[in-house]
């Protein structure tokens, strides 16, 4: 955005906030917001300033229904006249500029304990802007990326403060010799060399032999190391977990009195009531080490696959297909199986199948997923909350391997003009996921390598999800009419070999952010190239494997 554009946008935002947007200004503003993510983000930043200031200085409280007051039989006079707000500023408060919520007072006693705990996570903690000395350093990183998009730099010192890891796996070592293996997405605070706080995500703590004493606070639990290796995790609702891999820890609830020692193989969870309870340990709950890599291999993360399947064989169904996520009518002889690298191969895998007839492309998958069907991600990030993506070319004239790519699709160089393969609307990405909020299957289509003309839940498709009985995976089954793939007049037929690529995404426990990925059905020549990065294969059609359409029996 040019400085001129930025100034204009700011002026429009000012007018919007003041409620003084003229009709002409409104058209200008809307056009900018419709066409530019950068403009939307800048506008949202401006609104965040306005909203944040309004919050900071709001003087009025809000009334809840009388019913809430009778919940807790606490006389108002017995309560403090003011209790801390959720997000106090570090600056000095002006008297009277921020009165507390009136409706909250009768409830204050009941929630004081919870509130006190919440204070632990407030943002006026020592942060990276302080001048404190770094006591931790990044020892290793696999695709590590901070929340603001910066790459995690190996060797970089980390100052005390809150850190948010958006992507990848990062190993941090403190001056006490403690190793923290942080798996994205995670938000944590480094307080000192022997003390940290985890607000969200997964961290494995490992102390050097003969040492102990590292303390990790979670929203509902304090875990003290007694010479050990342990994993801690925090879900969005504050649910806190610890699992011991070696040695012992002491776990104490921060909400109710009591604590206990946990030994190797033991795991405890503190849910909404704050009580510590035992639960089964799961070996795949935490990533404890970086995956082994081959020379020159670029893995997308710790939860990642090594592709070995060249082609998916697609046959017509022998009996009519019922879309109910029960795959009993599918011929499994054409299924392929792919899994993440050990030790996650038992828990994170896909068994994929495809079929076709004159009207539909059918896709089914059984996905091993310890956090199945939790996807609450939206819009273009819907894949990150857990998804299966199948990318197909249905234009036999494009052949195999496909020559198109995202880079070529947007090329403005005369010597490298966009190829038909790059722009074809018969090259389609089918993004299938289960919406946890509506409890319904959903599908989004993107066309060509520009991913243009995206459509969410267009009419005509059918899809179903079913959770595994043991809650450790799910099955999906879709029927997609060829018309949605722009091939209703010339659908694939027996003997065709065209490009296809499968991708599976696993989410965090909250179903929002991508925790791991599998890429399968790939071109063996592409994946064996030195430096090949399968995580980027979706951008390059030449790396896709083959979809082989078989005759009916």
């Amino acid at each position, binding site marked *: 955005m040019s400085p001129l554009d930025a100034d204009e946008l*700011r002026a429009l935002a*000012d*007018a*919007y906030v003041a*409620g003084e947007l003229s009709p002409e200004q*409104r058209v200008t*503003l809307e056009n900018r917001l*419709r066409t530019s*993510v950068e403009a*939307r*983000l*800048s*506008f*949202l*930043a*401006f*609104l*965040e*300033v306005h*909203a944040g*200031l*309004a*919050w*900071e*200085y*709001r003087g*009025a409280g*809000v009334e*809840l*229904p009388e019913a809430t007051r009778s*919940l807790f039989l606490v006389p108002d006079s017995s309560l403090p006249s003011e209790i801390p707000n*959720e*997000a106090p*500023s*570090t600056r000095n408060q002006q008297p009277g500029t921020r009165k507390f919520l009136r*409706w909250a007072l009768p*409830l204050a006693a*009941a*929630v004081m304990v*919870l509130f006190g705990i*919440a204070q632990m996570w407030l943002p006026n903690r020592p942060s*990276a*802007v302080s001048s404190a000395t770094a006591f931790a350093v990044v020892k290793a990183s696999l695709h590590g990326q*901070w*929340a*603001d998009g*910066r790459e995690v730099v190996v060797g970089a010192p980390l100052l005390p*403060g809150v850190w*948010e890891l958006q992507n990848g796996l990062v190993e941090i070592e403190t001056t006490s010799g403690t190793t923290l293996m942080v798996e994205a997405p995670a938000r944590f605070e480094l307080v000192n060399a022997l003390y940290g706080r985890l607000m969200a995500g997964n961290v494995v703590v490992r102390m050097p032999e003969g040492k102990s004493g590292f303390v990790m606070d979670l929203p509902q639990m304090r875990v003290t190391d007694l010479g050990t290796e342990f994993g801690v995790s925090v879900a969005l*609702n504050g649910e806190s977990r610890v699992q011991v891999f070696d040695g012992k820890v002491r776990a104490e609830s921060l909400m109710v009195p009591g604590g206990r020692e946990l030994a190797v193989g033991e795991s405890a969870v503190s849910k*909404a009531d704050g009580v510590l309870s035992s639960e089964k340990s799961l070996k795949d709950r935490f990533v404890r080490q970086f995956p082994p890599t081959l020379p020159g291999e670029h893995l997308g993360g710790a939860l990642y696959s090594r592709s070995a399947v060249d082609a998916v064989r697609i046959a017509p169904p022998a009996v009519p297909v019922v879309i109910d996520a029960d795959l009993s009518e599918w011929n499994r002889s054409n299924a392929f199986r792919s899994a993440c690298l050990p030790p996650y191969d038992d828990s994170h895998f896909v068994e994929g199948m495809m079929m076709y007839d004159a009207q539909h492309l059918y896709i089914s998958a059984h996905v091993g997923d310890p956090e199945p069907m*939790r996807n*609450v991600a*939206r819009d*273009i*990030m819907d894949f990150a909350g857990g998804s299966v993506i199948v990318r197909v070319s249905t234009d036999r004239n494009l052949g195999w391997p496909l020559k198109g790519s995202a880079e070529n699709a947007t090329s403005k160089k005369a010597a490298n003009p966009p190829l038909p393969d790059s722009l074809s609307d018969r090259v389609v990405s089918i993004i299938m996921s289960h919406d*946890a*909020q509506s*409890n319904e299957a959903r599908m989004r289509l993107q066309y060509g390598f520009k991913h243009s003309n995206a459509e969410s839940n267009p009419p005509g498709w059918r899809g179903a999800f079913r959770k595994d009985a043991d809650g450790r995976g799910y099955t999906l089954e879709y029927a997609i009419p060829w018309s949605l793939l722009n091939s209703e007049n010339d659908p694939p037929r027996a003997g065709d070999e065209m490009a296809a690529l499968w991708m599976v995404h696993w989410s965090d426990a*909250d179903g929002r952010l991508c925790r791991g990925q599998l890429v399968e059905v790939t071109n063996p020549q592409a994946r064996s190239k030195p430096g090949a990065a399968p995580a980027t294969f979706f951008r390059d059609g030449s790396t896709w494997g083959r979809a082989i359409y078989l005759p009916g029996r």
Partner: protein
Amino acid sequence: MSSLESDERFVALLLANHNRIFRFLVTLVPCRSDAEDLLQQTCVTLWQGREKFDPAAGEFASWACAIAHNQVRNFWRREATRNAAHSQLSEDVVESLLATRSAHGSLMEEWHRALAYCLERLSPHQRSVVEECYGGASIKAAAPNAGRTPNALYKVLRHVRGLLHDCIQKTVKEGGLA
């Protein structure tokens, strides 16, 4: 979990997310008094529908903001009948903004955190202008206290908001609070 415990938990969630819900509302309805009214209605609706909240289906803030969004839609409909919604953005633009906001949820929180840091870096005079304008009912009402005309005060406020806008983006971009 007993009903009382469940209600306690719900209130705790409401308190913890009150700030987010308010900021969400102000994003859609910049007029603070309207946003306050909508916050009150949203809290009542959330409380009345608390049994419908399923923690397993998603985070509280998302659920609460969806309900707040419905309140805003109703508000806009009422405003439209009064022909008073000339500053209101089109539905598709609002949806686009919300999608961007949702996709960058962490960034919004970082900006909010950075705002406290950036406020501290304002001069005492600049901070007092912010306090006058946002602590009172309106700029017009605040102007006499500040010894300025409303127009002059508004210009200073615009300048200070611009400084804060730049500061929060720069702070987060440089990882200052990350």
